[in-house]
């Protein structure tokens, strides 16, 4: 093997025998890869498919935090997830069909706040206004614990440059009008476009 043919211009630090050359090359490659890794901006791509309060927190918390860390973050809202982009944000939470949801008092003495009062599905689905009640309890708990509201987190996401993208098909499917949604949506796209974006992401989550 003629080394001089491979490298007609030899660097001062470059060895000439093959074994040393390979070691030199490996070292250079490691350095280059490390430099590239250090310069890379991490990215997060979340697919938000649910429109209830419990499922609204993870995408907005993770995306806003990623943005605070300097990451490129995007959320693709599809199916019921699209509710989270409505101007009129009326998201609810219910223990119905959600058996792990703790039912605890948001106020009162500490001992009372620790007691879990699971509501049987039979009751939760038959009591008029129960969902409203459960949602209001959750909102009070969130507020008392200093956790931001969904609206607040969404505003932070918008301010901090999280890319909010929405599913075109869902709008057509549920006969939504685009003016029902916040104007901060970067794009209305389909599966093909989002997969291209998700493919490049370091972290991709389906929520």
């Amino acid at each position, binding site marked *: 093997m003629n080394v001089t043919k491979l490298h007609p211009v030899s660097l001062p630090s470059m060895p000439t025998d093959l074994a040393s050359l390979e070691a030199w090359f490996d070292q250079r490659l490691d350095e280059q890869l490390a430099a590239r890794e250090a310069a890379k901006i991490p990215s997060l791509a979340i697919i938000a498919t649910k429109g209830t309060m419990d499922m609204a927190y993870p995408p907005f918390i993770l995306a806003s935090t990623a943005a605070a860390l300097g990451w490129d973050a995007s959320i693709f809202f599809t199916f019921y997830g699209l509710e989270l982009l409505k101007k009129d944000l009326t998201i609810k939470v219910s223990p119905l069909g959600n058996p792990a949801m703790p039912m605890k008092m948001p106020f009162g003495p500490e001992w009372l706040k620790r007691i879990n009062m699971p509501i049987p599905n039979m009751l939760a689905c038959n009591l008029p206004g129960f969902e409203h009640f459960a949602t209001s309890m959750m909102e009070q708990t969130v507020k008392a614990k*200093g956790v931001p509201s969904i609206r607040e987190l969404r505003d932070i996401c918008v301010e901090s440059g999280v890319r909010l993208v929405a599913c075109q098909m869902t709008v057509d499917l549920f006969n939504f009008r685009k003016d029902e949604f916040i104007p901060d949506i970067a794009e209305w796209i389909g599966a093909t476009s989002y997969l291209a974006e998700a493919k490049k992401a370091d972290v991709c989550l389906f929520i």
Partner: protein
Amino acid sequence: MQSNQTLDARGLNCPLPILRTKKSLSSLQSGETLKVVSTDPGSLKDMASFCAQTGNTLLSSQQAGSDYEFVIRKA
């Protein structure tokens, strides 16, 4: 040590202490320091992780009663 700015994040829970810290840091010059006071126990680990990932320096991190105090130097 006198910090250039103080952020009172007491009573706030995840992820607000970090988000507010990021916001406060953006108004500082490189080399200036920010003091953050929080009550969220999670912020102990999160603040260290935030600084490690963003290149800012966590000069100190300590617990004072029910408060956590951090001093961050902006990169």
